[in-house]
């Protein structure tokens, strides 16, 4: 049963369904804010259509849900004013029929999830204050039901309340005449005196009031009091009850409750019965509506703790996908209820009280990716709005095979608003990895717009980092320097728990920026510093990092810089060691941004630059793996480069039989939009026409991105966009658009080496 929530937010009323949310224009349920003749409605004198009795926006939400589903749950949060709580939603008519039995209304619904909707103790206590002298005695025989005790009279009832541990009672029923008074006690005894429950002893979790109320809902107000004094759920009528009908209602209710049927289902069924108009129809549920006797039967009934624990179990071992889905949906709802946004959604999911997956923890993230991927299409729209970018980012890091799928899903979801700011970092990262820089820049711009001036947050730091990645790839080093300065300033102010990790990421980006600026020595220093820091991290903060990626970059940079240097030899030896067991490495190769492929790239370059036969022989066993890699949807960059470097090494020699053809690597790199890299590699191979073509394509693609980057100027203070870009173009063309030979040293000096 789909839930539609209504709660107060900043003086307005928010409506929320799993697929959409928004704010109502009015704080009154009726379109004209007019009170209606609700007593007439209940007594059958009036027939108000849903369409004419509610705000149009609300009508649309409810009607569309009612057309799709047989029943709908309307949850009115406790912070809604009484005019909402007392509104007779379920008495309105839809398509000519009353909504009773189709629309289940939960009033004063708590925003937080229950600690547990199931009840262990079966005991039911009935306080029967129905006078012995009444001619009609419809409440007899209840004591014959199992686990039911009936306490007769106000004195016994009061003593029962005072002398028992009420938390061990699953259900407390009060049968009485009602005072029908807005003021004073709600019950009237046989001697005419009024009575009320003594509340100083606490209350059981579920209380059912079987007494006449007034048409203004005095018992709804009393039910609210009971909720405030310890009850979790209260069922109380609005208006008068027919005693005979109420007796039958109670008898059926108790049997169903004892049989473990959920309370909303019991009421919904009774409210669907035409003969129940003067009993079941009039009962309203206040508080939690998902309780039942015995074990909970579905994930929505679980407490937050149990739901998270089961979802963690599913991530680790499988077996309960519903828990993972329900956890994500619950996080979505909680985030909206808490702040009206989804900004905290990823934090809640990763929190130890959620799935306990720290940022960057590869093993855990990969497990989440594997378990959530088959379920992603089942997520409602609002949940998918943050889960899809997150999954895309996880694919970017751990499984490139699924990257295109999430790129597509994110673009589909992007038609909706309210994407959280942090998701834009991911929404930029996904197309970036696919070489779609325009889309990446567009999402970066949207992210900066969402930040709305807030700085030194993890979100702004991540967006700046992603922008720097983009500028490095686009060979816009001068702007990269500006972004790097912003990033450094913000990092120095930032004190979040992930500060250390963000600092390390910044070192990596600055190193690559140095390479783009033709300063390999600075890059080597930065990579070396980062490697040392990673290796010195306590195990708990390493997230599986060992410094391998940094070693790969060190050898890659050293190879371009000076292949005969002692440090190059030193790094090469270490990389050779790391790659000495091909079968084990290939078997355990991660599907995403894997460290070993960067080691291969670096050693292949070293092999060519240093003319190292040993290195070549060590890489040959990987040739078949490279072929396989290039045939998949993995990022073709590192392996494509490695293949190309090996072809440069074997230029005048007999090629190893399994080494993929250079054209294969070229096509894959082309499809991955590695245009600047292809221009550089083509230049190194002496293919002047291809070099020129690829350079043109790169520069054309960069122009498309500039449209978005220009708009970032208000945040970043970029100036002279065109002049700087043209200067970069001249520099690129000066080296690559010439027929003169290109050497690794020249590429390095101009910052045009493949990165």
């Amino acid at each position, binding site marked *: 049963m789909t839930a539609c929530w209504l709660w107060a937010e900043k003086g307005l009323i928010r409506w929320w369904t799993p697929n959409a949310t928004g704010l109502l224009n009015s704080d009154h349920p009726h379109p004209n804010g007019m009170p209606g003749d609700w007593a007439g409605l209940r007594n059958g004198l009036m027939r108000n259509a849903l369409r004419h009795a509610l705000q149009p926006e609300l009508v649309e939400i409810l009607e569309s849900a009612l057309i799709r589903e047989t029943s709908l749950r309307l949850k009115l949060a406790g912070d809604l004013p009484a005019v909402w709580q007392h509104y007779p939603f379920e008495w309105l008519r839809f398509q000519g029929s009353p909504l009773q039995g189709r629309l289940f209304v939960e009033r004063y619904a708590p925003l937080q999830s229950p600690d547990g909707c199931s009840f262990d103790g079966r005991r039911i206590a009935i306080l029967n204050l129905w006078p*012995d002298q009444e001619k009609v005695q419809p409440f*007899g*025989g209840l*004591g*014959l039901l*199992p*686990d*039911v*005790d*009936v*306490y*007769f*009279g106000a*004195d*016994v009832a*009061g*003593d*029962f309340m*005072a*002398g*028992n541990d009420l938390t061990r009672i699953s259900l407390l029923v009060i049968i009485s005449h009602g005072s029908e008074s807005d003021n004073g006690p709600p019950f009237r005894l046989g001697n005419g005196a009024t009575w009320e429950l003594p509340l100083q002893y606490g209350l059981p979790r579920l209380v059912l009031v079987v007494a006449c109320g007034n048409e203004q809902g005095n018992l709804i107000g009393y039910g609210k009091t009971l909720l405030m004094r310890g009850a979790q759920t209260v069922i109380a009528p609005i208006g008068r009850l027919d005693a005979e009908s109420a007796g039958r209602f109670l008898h059926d209710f108790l049997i169903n409750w004892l049989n473990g049927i959920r309370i909303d289902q019991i009421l919904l069924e009774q409210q669907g019965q035409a003969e129940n108009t003067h009993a079941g129809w009039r009962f309203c549920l206040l508080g939690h509506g998902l309780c039942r006797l015995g074990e909970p039967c579905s994930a929505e009934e679980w407490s937050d703790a149990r739901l998270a624990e089961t979802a963690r179990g599913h991530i680790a071992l499988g077996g309960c996908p519903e828990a993972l889905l329900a956890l994500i949906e619950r996080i979505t709802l909680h985030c909206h209820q808490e702040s009206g946004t989804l900004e905290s959604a990823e934090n809640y999911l990763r929190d130890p009280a959620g799935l306990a997956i720290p940022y960057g923890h590869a093993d855990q993230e990969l497990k989440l990716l594997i378990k959530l991927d088959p379920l992603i299409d089942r997520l409602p729209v609002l949940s998918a709005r943050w889960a899809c970018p997150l999954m895309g980012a996880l694919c970017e890091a751990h499984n490139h095979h699924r990257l295109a799928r999430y790129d597509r899903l994110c673009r589909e979801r992007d038609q909706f608003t309210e994407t959280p700011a942090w998701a834009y970092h991911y929404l930029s990262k996904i197309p970036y990895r696919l070489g779609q820089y325009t889309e990446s820049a567009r999402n970066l711009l949207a992210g900066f717009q969402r930040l709305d001036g807030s700085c030194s947050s993890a979100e702004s730091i991540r967006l700046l980092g992603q922008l720097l990645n983009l500028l490095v790839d686009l060979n816009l080093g001068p702007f990269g320097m500006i972004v790097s300065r912003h990033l450094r300033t913000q990092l120095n102010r930032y004190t979040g728990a992930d500060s250390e990790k963000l600092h390390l990421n910044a070192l990596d980006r600055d190193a690559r920026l140095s390479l783009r600026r033709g300063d390999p020595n600075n890059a080597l220093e930065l990579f070396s510093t980062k490697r040392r820091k990673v290796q010195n991290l306590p195990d708990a903060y390493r997230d599986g990092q060992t410094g391998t990626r940094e070693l790969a970059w060190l050898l890659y940079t050293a190879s371009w810089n000076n292949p005969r240097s002692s440090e190059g030899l030193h790094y090469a030896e270490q990389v050779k060691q790391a790659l000495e067991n091909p079968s084990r490495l290939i078997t355990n190769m991660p599907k995403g941004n894997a460290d070993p492929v960067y080691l291969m790239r670096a050693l292949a370059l070293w092999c060519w630059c240093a003319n190292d036969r040993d290195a070549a022989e060590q890489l040959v066993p990987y040739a078949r793996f490279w072929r396989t890699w290039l045939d998949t949807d993995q990022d073709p960059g590192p392996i494509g480069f490695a293949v190309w470097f090996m072809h440069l090494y074997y230029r005048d020699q007999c090629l190893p039989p399994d080494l993929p053809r250079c054209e294969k690597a070229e096509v894959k790199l082309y499809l991955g939009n590695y245009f600047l890299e292809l221009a550089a590699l083509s230049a190194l191979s002496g293919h002047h026409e291809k070099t020129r073509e690829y350079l043109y394509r790169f520069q054309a693609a960069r122009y498309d991105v500039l449209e978005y980057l220009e708009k970032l100027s208000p945040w970043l203070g970029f100036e002279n966009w065109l002049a700087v870009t043209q200067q970069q173009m001249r520099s690129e063309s000066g080296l690559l658009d010439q027929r003169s030979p290109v050497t690794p040293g020249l590429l390095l000096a101009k910052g045009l080496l493949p990165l």
Partner: protein
Amino acid sequence: MKPGKPSLAQIEADWFRPSDRLISRISNDDPDTPPELRFAVENNPEFKMCIQESYETETEDSGYSPGRAPPEYLLNLADRRHTAQESLKNATLKPGAMVAIDRLIGPSGELSIDLPKTAVVLLDGIEHPSGIWYGWMVGAEAGYATNWDYVLLEEDGHFDPSLAGMAQLWNPVRVYVKSIARIVGEISNDRLQAVRALAAEFLTRPDNCEAYAGPGAAGPRRTLHGYKVVTGKPVRGQSDPRWRYQEIYLAVKSAVGEPAKAAMALKPWWEAIWAGFQNSFTSEEPAMAYAMGETPHESLREGILADRFRVGLDNRIDKVMRVRFTRIGDHRSTIRLLRNGEVSQTMAADDRNKIFLLDDSGRFSLEISDAEGNLLDQLDLTETGED
């Protein structure tokens, strides 16, 4: 308060004359006036005169006539009385409260004992949940204080000084709650402890202070517990006017205690039902007489039912009877309590303990069944009570 003021004759006259209310009832020929009281008044010439005066007073014009300004001490008393009244607006019955008794009302209505003036009692505690308190008589005449009178000082609490001057620890009394007209004072917990300490000394220490005997001004002293109290001196003998004073107040105490005596003589409604249980007990265990901290009414009464259940009476309020069942052994017998023939409460096979609650509004019976549901025994609990 000066020693010997007011005079013994005045005190005696105040307590032993007919009350204004009784005079008024007789003069108005109130048919509900107890005949023995009417007889006593009409056969006493002095009191008969009072009736005559009552007729005349009623026919006189009772116009306001300003007199002389009241003396300073009266104004002071009025101020303290007003302050006490204000402070006691939300006071409740509790140990340390001083209660006024204007009429003697027992469980069945007003007793045929005339109380000519307001008696005051300092409450020490509740003796019975049905409304019997215990405490000490309080006299207004602190000038008659003995070494076993606790002289009330202004700083002890809030109280009406025209009614309360000293707590008579030699004169303990029981009060029935329906006789309590209002609360006229209360002393602090600390002072109540001091009063209790002095009362304990009265009960446990021989009166050996003859050397200081004789009327005279009250003075401070310390109890054995170290509480500072103000008392008078010991009574010298029958010639001491305080001897007679105490006789008067012992007589007043006797009257004030009558309603409580009547209440205690009444058998509560649940005794009959309990007798129904007792008739069925296979063995009756002696009750634990007094547990620490319990007052006598809380003592348990127990017995064994059908050799399977220990049954105990554990009442907390007079209107509800609480019967506690404890399973003996591992059998899975069940007990059902029926009210007017309908099942009310059940001790299920898995219950180790169960408390059944009964009131006096219906007929109760018990059904004991074995694990298979076969009826083992049936008890009609109300039959004995109605006979």
